Every structure is written in C-alpha cells, then in structure tokens.
C-alpha cells in the first residue's frame, strides 16, 4: 500500500539517524510541540535496524503524546519484520505531497512587509529610487577615472577664510623660533643637549595645535551641537547620495573623489586618499587619508574594519595619527574590531561599532 500523505497527520523524517537514541530524541522533540499532538504520524526510519522492543518503545512514545503511528517507511528488512510482529503498517512514501494553499496569506505578509519597510525608509516608492541611484552610480563610475584629482571647493574657501588667523599664528611661532635660535647661537654646545625629546613640551605643542585647530573652524560652528533631528535628516540625505563601490585595494598615490558615499572592499594603503561628500566605509584596513563630508557635512562618518589612518578629516575637522603609535603596516592576521569616526564636541572621535 502506497501513501503519499496522511490526513490529519505529518511525516517525521529521521532517515538520517544512525542510532535508535537519535530517532527517539528527534521524535520526542517534535511531538513535544503543541501542534504535533493528537495527530497521525508517519515515520521515515531509513536504514536503521530496529528490534521489536525498540519499535515498541517508539510506538509507546508516540502514543504517550496522544498521537498514533499511521505507518512507517524503512529500507531495512529487519525493521520490516519487527513492524509486522507489532502490526504496524509499512508503506512507501510518494514525493507528491499536495502543497497547502498559502496565496491568501502571502499577500497579507507582503503588504505588512512593505509597511514595515516604509516605516524604516519613510518612502513609498523605494524601488524607483534605488533604480535611479543605480543610474547615477553608473554615470559616476564612468566619470570617476577621468575626474581630476582636486580637493573640493569647500576646502579652498575654508583655507582662504582661515588664512589670516594662520598667518598670525605663524608669525608668533617664527618669533619664538628666533628667540630660541639666538639662545642656540650663544651656547651651541648646550643646544644639542636641550634639543632632545621633551615630552612636556610636546604635549604643550599638541595642545596648542588643538587650540589652533579649534580656532580655524570659525564662528558658525560654535552654535551647532549634536542635534538628533539634524542627525536623522543628514542620515536620510546620506542614504540618498549615490555610492561609489570599489572592489580593490587602494594603493599609495591613488586618490578617489566622489560626490556621494564611497565603499571600498579592500584595504586603503598608506599614501592613498579618499575624499567623499558623504560617508566613507572601508571593508579592510584604512591606512591612508580619508576625508568624509568634504562639502561640509559634519555628520559624515568614516568606518573601517581597522582604523590606522594617517589623517582623518570630517568636514572641516582634522585628526592625525599620534606620533607614539608607529605602525606603518598592520599584520593581516590581527583580529579586527570595526571602528567608526565621527565628530563629537568639535573633535573627531573614534569608537568601536560593536561593543561586546
């Protein structure tokens, strides 16, 4: 007698099991489910040889869950014999099981999925948008190699505006130099000794530089705090930007400039340069210079599996690798913790993306 399916029942496929204990474990797991109770069960037992007692215990297990064995399917003659002794039907399963009709439900599911997506992305016609993005991207990729390597205009205007301040700083520094120089010439032999490394002075220098960096940022930045609404808005805008997708290692001297986001699958080696108006993501070691939000977006972010950048620039803020960390090349066997750089309180902050 061949049966394709069972009414008010289900098939338990334990044909991969090699031991009786595995079959019992699997069965008890399935029959524990509330839906599996008071049903008819078909067992696919495979090639395991089962004795009468083993089969009895399996039957007892099924019956303890208010179910009953409809028939079993096995390739072992030994099991067939034991089944005949216990009056259990042995049958061959056909593969033609009629599919339950889910169509009505499927539509519902689709509708809800769309709703959820709308909630996330906030747009009804997401499909059209992505298509348009693709178009832009293609255009951009065609244009990208021919693009002249040029820092974006925003930087130019910024540098011009900050020039006066820079000059005054320079002058004061030069004046200081002259003083030191006169000392040096007076006492040349001592100067060699004093020229040695002085950590306190170094720190002072660094602080001075930090102050200068803040000065250069200008006045309009003073009012802006880390505003959540602005952050969300900028996130959405960044999403809409075209994304340049590069699947190779960026080597020393290579420079990539984009009006949108840049994603690099590979490393960005020391000496390379990535400039984007949106975000920068490096799926690898970031070792060169990265400038995100080059058009002035202070919410732009730089992400990398390993942050070893010589310089990070976000909008008009600037950070450099500390001098005491001198790792020109990172071992590729190191464990990587993905990190993200963003502006926090007018400074660039690097934090781990996943704390665990």
């Amino acid at each position, binding site marked *: 007698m061949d049966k394709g399916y069972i009414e008010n029942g289900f098939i338990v496929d334990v044909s991969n099991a090699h031991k009786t204990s595995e079959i019992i474990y699997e069965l008890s797991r399935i029959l524990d489910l509330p839906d599996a109770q008071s049903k008819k069960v078909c067992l696919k037992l495979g090639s395991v040889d089962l004795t009468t007692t083993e089969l009895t215990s399996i039957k007892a297990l099924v019956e303890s869950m208010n179910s009953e064995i409809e028939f079993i399917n096995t390739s072992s003659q030994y099991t067939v014999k034991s089944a005949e002794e216990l009056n259990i039907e042995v049958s061959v399963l056909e593969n033609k099981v009629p599919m339950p009709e889910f169509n009505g439900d499927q539509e519902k599911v689709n509708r809800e999925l769309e709703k959820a997506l709308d909630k996330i992305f906030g747009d009804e016609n997401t499909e059209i948008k992505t298509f348009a993005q693709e178009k832009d991207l293609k255009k951009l990729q065609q244009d990208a190699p021919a693009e002249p390597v040029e820092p974006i205009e925003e930087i130019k205007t910024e540098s011009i505006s900050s020039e006066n301040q820079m000059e005054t700083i320079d002058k004061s520094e030069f004046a200081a*130099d002259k003083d*030191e120089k006169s000392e040096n010439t007076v006492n040349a032999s001592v100067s060699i000794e004093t*020229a040695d490394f002085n950590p306190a002075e170094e720190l002072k220098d660094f602080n001075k530089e930090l102050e200068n960096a803040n000065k250069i940022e200008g006045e309009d930045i003073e009012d802006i705090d880390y505003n959540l609404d602005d952050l969300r808005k900028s996130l959405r805008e960044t999403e809409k930007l075209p994304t340049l997708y590069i699947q190779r290692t960026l080597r020393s001297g290579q420079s990539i400039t984009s009006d949108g986001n840049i994603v690099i699958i590979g490393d960005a080696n020391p000496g390379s340069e990535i400039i984007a108006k949106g975000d920068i993501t490096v799926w690898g070691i970031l070792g060169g210079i990265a400038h995100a939000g080059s058009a002035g977006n202070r919410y732009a972010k730089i992400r990398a599996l390993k942050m070893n950048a010589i310089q990070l620039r976000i909008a008009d803020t*600037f950070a450099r690798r500390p001098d005491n960390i001198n790792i020109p090349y990172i071992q590729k066997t190191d464990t990587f913790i993905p990190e993200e750089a963003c502006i926090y309180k007018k400074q660039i902050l690097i934090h781990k993306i996943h704390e665990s």
Partner: protein
Amino acid sequence: MSGRVIVITSGKGGVGKTTTNANIGTALARAGKKVVMIDTDLGLRNLDLLLGLENRIVYTIVDVVEERCKLKQALVKDKKNPNLCLLAAAQTRDKTAVTEEQLKDICEKLKKDFDFILVDCPAGIEQGFQNAVAGASEAIVVTTPEMSAVRDADRIIGLLEAKEEIKSYKLLLNRVRPNLIKSNDMMSVDDVVEILSAELIGIIPEDTGIITSTNKGEPIVNDEKSLAGKAYNNVARRIIGEDVPFLNLEEPQGVMAKIKKFFSGLTGKEK
C-alpha cells in the same frame, strides 16, 4: 639672511639620497641652523616617512604651486627640532605638476628665512632632476662604491657641470664596508674619488641601524652611539665650514677576534 640651497642627488636609485637628506638636515638643525628640506620626489615621497612627519602633512608643494595655500602654511615643523621644517611632496601627482621656474621661485622665497635649503632629488635625469637642480647653487652627489652607482654619479656630475647655477659639487660615499674593501671585494674610497675626480665631503659606513631608524621615522644622527650617525654629523659640520677629519671606519674588534688573534700569535711563536 640668505640661505644656501643644496641639492642632494645621485642618478641611481637606492643609494641613500633621502636618508642623507634627512640626516644632514637634522644634524644641521641640531647645530643651531635653520633648515628646510624640500622633497621634490612627487608621487614617490619618502622624506616625510624618514622624519616621522607623515601624519602632519596637510598641504604639499603642489598646493603651494597651485596657490591653494601660502608657503608658510605648507611647511611642516619637525617634532623635536623647531629649527627644522619640511616642504612635502604630493603623493597623488607626478613630476609634471611642478616646473623648474616654480621651484626656483620657492627656493628664492625660502632663502630669506632659512640658513639651509636641502632639496631631495628623485632618481633619474628626467624632469624631476631638472626641477630639483633648478633652484640650487650647490650639490652633493651621493654614490656607493659599486660600479653602476659610480657610473651614474659620473653622468650626474657631467650634467651638474653643464649647469651655470651650480657653483660647487661634492661627493658623498655611502654604504662603505671597510671589511670588504680590506679583502679587495669592494672599490676603495680612493678608487671612487679617482674615477670621479670630485672633492669628498663624507664617507658613511654601512649601518644596520639605518633600517631601524627609517622604520621608526627617526634620523640616525639622533643616536650618538651610531657610527653612521657620527659620520653624518661630520658631513654637516663640513658643510658649515669646519675642518673635520674623516672617521676611522675600521670596526672595533670584538672579544672573540682579540682572543683569536692572541692564540694565533702564540702558535706563531711556537713555530
């Protein structure tokens, strides 16, 4: 103040132009001179790495030339020595980004503020070399005691002699190994000087410390114990005008060598 513009060149690559530049520059600054180094090796810059200033570069010589910033803004000050400055090369451009006239102009401007302007020349005799030499009035030709390097140095000296601006040129012999010279496996200092018939300004011994100092971004002249560091310091003093005798490069003998010598002497006596 009118500074001296010295170009450091070699023709052949890998003989130690950039190392020489970084070390002489640092030594001069330590002696109280105001020094600026110009890296003209556009696209293959290394000088910043040797000085450990890679992370401070914002503007490069190309930015200055294309008037994106002022010259003073582009000068990167050294970590330790305030007398020392670096004008870095652009990494993302090639030799054609700067012309001879522009480099000459930069050198003229820097002369007013600095005692020494050291120009690091790229390898080869093409545009990059022509640019580097343009603003200079003195030259240091770096070579090693190898036939190929000496041949290239000869070619470079010929080109330098043809330039009217170059008033004097001197020879710096790098990576000398006294042991090999002793066993007649390497050209001796005298051989090289004879072939090139140029005035010698320094002899630098081969030193493994150079490799570590390059990796650390710290010129070897800061290491008082190093023989190569001493040699570079002496070169700097000779540039200033002091009369310094050449170093005795014979390696100091180790304990084992002394014991061996002692025993060989004994056995010799017995015979």
